[in-house]
């Protein structure tokens, strides 16, 4: 990328390291994943680092392993929207993004909840719309697990269309005419009828500052990519390696034109972890230590059991892989994405790799569960992040710290200044809304200056 051009700007978001198997709780620096102070700390750190947004994941049923509640990773989290509204009170510019399931919420509720968050945060709301079709999660809801897997994107698209129809329910902000006694033009009756929904009535909120909250989307299938190209403002991807990322980037951005959208209308933001050190060797050593904290002996066996579909508690995590074949129990772990569709093939591949590289059970699990990770000195990490963005592998990253709540401190103190020195990262917020941070258009303020709807 020639230096004479303005450098493409890196977008950064911060994932709250709560419930997932990469969050290290054994570390002495690990704090509460539920106390509000932890959320305040991470959000304020992200805002000090001029990040685009803070991101909160969601789960609607506690994970189970071998029919018992999984107890090895962090368990327990608060309500997504409640935390985001509360965080709006301790931040001023940071975007506030949360995962909310389209299967177990109704469009009218979603439109009002995200509309409220957008109003109360002054235009900083984002919704990561995810789908669910499993009966396991459905057992916590009156609708149950009724949704056919094939229909989940149909429903998700209809939920988004319905919420947008509701958000468009008021043609303009209230006009307060005290003398004539007129409070706004009464909102129209919204009518939305689709395969899954029959909604009719007035919406209860005027247009929020962003028009529509920013819509995020994760999902890598062809369906998921198409859905994102049609509807989303940003997509979380899992394509960490540079070439892999470039292919994904070309593919997804190439799908935009047919929806009348341009390259800048959809941002691609892979999740990434990072480890910093004073020297490259120091960083590598720290990364190894963190990986061993993430995959303890019991966790290694639990992972292996996901593929083997049976109790492997008698095996030594520091010993070789089991020579027995996997059972057909694919439901041994419930409440998270399954690892293997074909357990026998995975088991064979893992055994071959372990033998070839001389890996124990725990070492193998550490190797096969590795994610995109930047490891190095702050200058090295900044250079790598910048390289991905300048070379069209992504538009930035959603950073996933491994510690709650201080996991982002060193990045903001050490890497952000390096990125700023390279001219790739803002030195102050120039807008007030998340759409402005992300460089996205307001849905109702088109280039002609007229309302799209």
């Amino acid at each position, binding site marked *: 990328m020639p230096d004479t051009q303005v450098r493409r700007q890196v977008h950064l978001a911060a994932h709250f390291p709560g419930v997932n198997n990469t969050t290290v709780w054994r570390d002495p620096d690990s704090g509460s994943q539920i106390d509000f102070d932890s959320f305040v700390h991470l959000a304020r750190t992200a805002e000090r680092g001029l990040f685009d947004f803070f991101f909160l994941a969601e789960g*609607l049923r506690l994970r189970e392993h071998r029919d018992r509640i999984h107890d090895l990773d962090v368990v327990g989290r608060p309500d997504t929207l409640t935390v985001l509204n509360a965080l709006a009170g301790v931040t001023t510019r940071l975007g506030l993004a949360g995962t909310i399931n389209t299967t177990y919420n109704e469009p009218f509720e979603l439109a009002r909840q995200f509309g409220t968050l957008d109003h109360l945060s002054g235009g900083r709301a984002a919704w990561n719309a995810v789908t669910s079709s499993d009966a396991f999660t459905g057992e*916590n809801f009156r609708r149950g697990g009724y949704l056919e897997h094939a229909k989940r994107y149909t429903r998700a698209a209809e939920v988004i269309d319905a919420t947008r129809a509701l958000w468009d329910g008021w043609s303009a902000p*209230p006009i307060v005419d005290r003398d004539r006694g007129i409070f706004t033009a009464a*909102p129209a009756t919204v009518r939305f009828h689709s395969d899954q*929904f029959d909604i009719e009535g007035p919406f209860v*909120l005027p247009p929020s500052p962003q028009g529509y909250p920013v819509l995020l989307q994760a999902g890598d299938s062809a369906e998921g990519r198409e859905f994102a190209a049609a509807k989303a403002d940003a997509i979380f991807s899992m394509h960490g390696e540079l070439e892999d990322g470039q292919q994904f980037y070309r593919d997804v951005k190439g799908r935009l034109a047919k929806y009348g959208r341009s390259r800048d209308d959809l941002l691609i933001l892979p999740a990434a972890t990072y480890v910093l050190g004073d020297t490259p060797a120091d960083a590598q050593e720290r990364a190894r230590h963190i990986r061993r904290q993430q995959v303890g002996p019991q966790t290694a066996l639990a992972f292996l059991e996901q593929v083997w579909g049976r109790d492997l508690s008698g095996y030594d995590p520091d010993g070789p892989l089991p020579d027995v074949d996997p059972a057909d129990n694919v439901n041994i772990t419930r409440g998270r994405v399954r690892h293997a569709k074909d357990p026998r093939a995975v088991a064979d591949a893992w055994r071959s790799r372990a033998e070839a590289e001389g890996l124990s059970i725990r070492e193998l699990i550490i190797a096969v569960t590795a994610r995109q990770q930047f490891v190095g000195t702050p200058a090295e990490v900044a250079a790598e992040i910048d390289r991905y963005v300048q070379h069209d592998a992504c538009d930035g990253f959603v950073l996933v710290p491994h510690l709650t709540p201080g996991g982002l401190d060193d990045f903001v103190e050490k890497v952000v200044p390096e990125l700023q020195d390279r001219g790739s990262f803002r030195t102050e917020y120039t807008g007030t809304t998340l759409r402005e941070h992300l460089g996205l258009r307001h849905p109702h303020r088109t280039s002609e200056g007229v309302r799209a709807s």
Partner: protein
Amino acid sequence: MTARRNLLLGVELSGTGAHPASWRRPDSRAEELFTAGYWLDAITAADRYGLDLVFLPDSFALQPVGALGRLEAVGVAARAAAATYRIGLIPQVPVTHTEPFHVSKAVASVDFATLGRAGWEVTVSRGQSALFGRKAEQDEVSLWAEADEAVEVVTRLWDSWEDDAEIRDAATGRFIDRDKLHYIDYVGEHFSVKGPSITPRPPQGQPIVVIRAADPHSTAVAVRRADVIRVAAADLAAAAQARAEVRAAVAAAGRDPDRVSVLVDLDVHLAATEENAVVDVAQLEVWTPTADPNTLRHIGTADTLRELLGRIHATGAGDGVVLRPLAVAAFTAALPKLAPRLRDRLGLPRPVDRYAPTA
């Protein structure tokens, strides 16, 4: 009966005020009704001047008249968490269309964000089924039978984690003691919910449950389940009678009436003089006439309101009141004069100045 506690003072913040014409007042800030600043100014003032509770009404329906539109009440409560220090935050959450699993974790999370100041006023939704398109309209019996189940589910979910479930036991690699997490396995007519909650038990264990006893159906649920029961009454004698009836019903339901607070609605408008207050309300009625509220009402000054509150306390007409400002901005401006002073809290009268001339 045990010694009477201090009178609980709550305020219900309904848009620009309980009077549908309140938005037309020059001080109403109606233009800011959907901003955080509007709500924070009122809620933090109530907190600063010593009120105990703030109630946040909610509904999916649009108001029939007046300033239209409503932010979601749990969102407003959460937004106010970091800006308040003492006051209890009690959003309404209707249960007719919302999943109890979501209600449970939302209210628990307000409790976490406030270190234990959250409550939940249970309500039902009438005439709003078309907004959801999921089920037919229900009658009162069905609405409150469903609400009864919803409270059961929500409170079971709050208990579904024991307080000390998180153990972080490095030796065994266990973050939680799974034996201290419980499936609630609730199966009822309207819900079946497996549990446990995704959210640990909140600071209060059980956030405060509030139900308005407005008719036989809601009253039946309130006396069985509520920590705080709201009633309306036309005068002090009727309020005292309503309180006595509610307490008797609570006892009949096998609960200790002294663990339930009965709060009576008190519509209020305050101004510098009583004449001004009367003129203000007359103006509101010119703009939008309203029916006789059939509720305790005080139109006057902060001083005369304090006298009325003293009488309510002395006569046992309520364990507390829910002040419903006809115009929120005027009420907020008058709050400093209403602030419960230490002598009030100790039940001591304000002494007469020994040097002041006597009448």
